[in-house]
């Protein structure tokens, strides 16, 4: 078998149009690519990428990631007042009592001498206002708190994980800040000594620190739930366990659940309303079902208007008029998508097969029966599949509308990010939001398969 050979000149002579056609196509492709590329270069400058790179704070991403999968315990000794505190995330409601200090903290009664074991060979000894930090590789570091700030002595080289803070006007050292590894931090100023030790995991996810259920294992909690002996005489144990979990002040499970419900309500109500209002309007806007051109024209423009106003503007108007809540979001979605779905349905109605209607009317069917058996079966698949597609997409829209101020999970998310204190809460909300969206996606594609195949 001979391999085919390629002779450009022979080919050009035989099929001139084929060759020039391909050549012209390549040229168009090349020119388009150059245009797109030029546009992207323009965009780099329009968005001022160089400045952005200069001002970006990648350490925030690290902080966010570390903080969202870990929690820290603060050991704080005040040098102004005789105060010593061991608390989870430094929160007043999560303070250990002296007899329940974790094993790695040892303090005498008046907290004059304190030993904190930070793990990996890092140990902090506090005696009065003198701090000694033992390290595995960098010798010991001595910090003495004095009237003007601190003095620092190193037994070896100054490690690069220590930062010294200087008061620029007086030239005194005022701050010692050491972070030998990402899970340990020691900060010393004239007013206090603060030690952070990080632990993996979300703290107090189920029960708050100060509740009687804190620190119990899953088995113990299950045992309590069925036991007759009540922890709180006013309620059964199961109710107590649920309410303690639900009203957990730090994680606010109940509050977040309510926000998720609001978002679901917005998406579902908005889409259903749009589909049910859009369908009759679509009949009136399709030339196959409505002979009055004026009405058709007016409805088409109404659809364009509803779509053109866009969800952003509808949301702003409805937030003003209806305040915070799911009704606001539902109506904003309903208004926008009545336009979109109305347009889609009317196009589908204009493309239906007339023969089916003629067949039905040949059996002597009246107007209602013609619609029921000739039209509805043809557009039902479009109606269902479009409705479900928009349901999916509107779950995402509902989170965004919520963030604009309509409430729901979007607003909760924006608020926790703005306060940017507890990133683990943010991560929790993000995970729940994604789960919600994915679950709705799954539900809608399952329904679509069932309804369209089965119907």
């Amino acid at each position, binding site marked *: 078998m001979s391999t085919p050979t390629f002779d450009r000149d022979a080919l050009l002579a035989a099929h001139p149009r084929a060759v020039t056609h391909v050549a012209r196509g390549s040229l168009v492709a090349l020119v388009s690519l150059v245009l797109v590329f030029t546009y992207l270069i323009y965009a780099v400058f329009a968005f001022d990428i160089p400045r952005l790179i200069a001002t970006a704070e990648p350490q925030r991403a690290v902080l966010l990631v570390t903080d969202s999968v870990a929690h820290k315990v603060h050991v704080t000794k005040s040098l102004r007042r005789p105060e010593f505190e061991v608390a989870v995330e430094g929160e007043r409601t999560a303070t250990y009592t002296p007899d329940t200090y974790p094993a790695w903290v040892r303090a005498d009664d008046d907290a004059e001498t304190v030993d904190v074991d930070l793990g990996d060979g890092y140990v902090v000894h506090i005696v009065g206002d003198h701090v000694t930090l033992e390290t595995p590789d960098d010798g010991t570091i001595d910090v003495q708190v004095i009237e003007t700030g601190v003095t620092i002595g190193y037994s070896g080289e100054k490690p690069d994980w220590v930062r010294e803070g200087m008061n620029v006007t007086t030239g005194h050292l005022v701050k010692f800040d050491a972070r030998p590894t990402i899970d340990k931090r020691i900060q010393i100023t004239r007013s206090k000594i603060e030690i952070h030790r990080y632990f993996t995991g979300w703290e107090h996810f189920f029960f708050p620190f100060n509740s009687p259920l804190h620190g119990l294992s899953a088995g113990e909690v299950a045992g309590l739930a069925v036991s007759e002996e009540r922890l709180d005489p006013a309620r059964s144990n199961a109710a107590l366990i649920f309410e303690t979990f639900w009203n957990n002040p730090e994680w606010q499970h109940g509050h977040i659940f309510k926000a998720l419900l609001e978002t679901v309500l917005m998406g579902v109500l908005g889409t*259903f309303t749009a589909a049910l209002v859009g369908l009759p309007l679509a009949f009136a806007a399709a030339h196959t079902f409505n002979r009055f051109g004026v009405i058709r024209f007016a409805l088409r423009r109404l659809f364009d208007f509803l779509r053109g106003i866009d969800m952003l503007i509808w949301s702003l108007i409805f937030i003003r008029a209806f305040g915070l809540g*799911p*009704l606001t979001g539902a109506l904003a979605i309903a208004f926008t998508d009545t336009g979109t779905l109305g347009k889609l349905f009317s196009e589908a109605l204009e493309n239906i097969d007339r023969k089916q209607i003629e067949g039905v009317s040949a059996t002597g069917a009246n107007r209602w029966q013609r619609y029921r058996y000739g039209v509805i079966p043809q557009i039902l698949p479009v109606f269902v599949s479009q409705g479900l597609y928009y349901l999916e997409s509107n779950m995402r829209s509902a989170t965004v509308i919520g963030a604009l101020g309509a409430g729901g999970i979007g607003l909760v998310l924006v608020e926790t990010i703005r306060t940017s204190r507890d990133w683990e809460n943010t991560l929790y909300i993000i995970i729940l*939001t994604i789960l919600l969206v994915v679950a709705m996606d799954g539900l809608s594609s399952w329904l679509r398969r069932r309804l369209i195949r089965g119907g």
Partner: protein
Amino acid sequence: MTSLTFDPDQHAGIVALEQRRRLYSMLTIVVLVIILVAGYTQAESMNSGGFMKGMSQFFDYPGDVIEEAWAVGWAFWGIVWRFVPALVETLNIAATATILGGVFAAVFAFLSTRNLDVWPPLIPVSRRMMDIMRAFPELVLALFLIFVLGASSVPAVIAIAFHTVGALGKLFSEVNENIDRRPVEGLQAVGANWPKRMRFGVLPQVLPNYFSYFLLRFEINVRAAAILGYVGAGGLGAELLRTIGWGKGQETAALLLLLFASITIIDQVSGMIRRSLATGTLSGRRMMA
């Protein structure tokens, strides 16, 4: 002419089927009505302002804004002109995100289609990746990136592009699945390698459809860019947040007019282009945000 008669006994199977279908339809309608009634009742009780009160105030805000814009007179068009750069920024966000998203979507679509002779183990991997990108809400990614990169347009570009890869990738791969294999086989017969088979056998078939979906996605992304601006990503949305906060009705009116006009124009123009590109198989119906 004899009229048709219908003997129920003779068609018991059909009658039973029809009755079952009617039952299902009734059930579906009842469930829908219950969801709507219960949902609106619940939504009404959770909302801070009630429905009736809200309805009576519905036209207050648009009315105020239009009134203030009217009071400015001809100078209003000067305000509109002043906000054109913000509009350009929003359009830039949408265009850049759609281009970047579209390029990656095309790559993913080629790697996830069975009939394009790609290495089979890649197919499920790239499909799952597109599913993840599609499911990820733009808002979440945008807020995260705004926190890390600072308030600018780039977080919005990345967030929208990320979602676009998933959304367009799925549509592109559906286009790929419906191609005619014969040109590819013809090219293979004359010894063309994989890139050449794709370039001359597949791309000419799919590009018009790709372009049509691309335009549709651009429309959707313009809207998304405006909204993300409102949560901190620049452009029209950011200006809108500022003017609403400061209570400058005429500026708000100018921004709303720009947004409405640009969305309507893009909508109509892209609709026209898509209709002229359209072949029988193509429609915007499968497109979703």
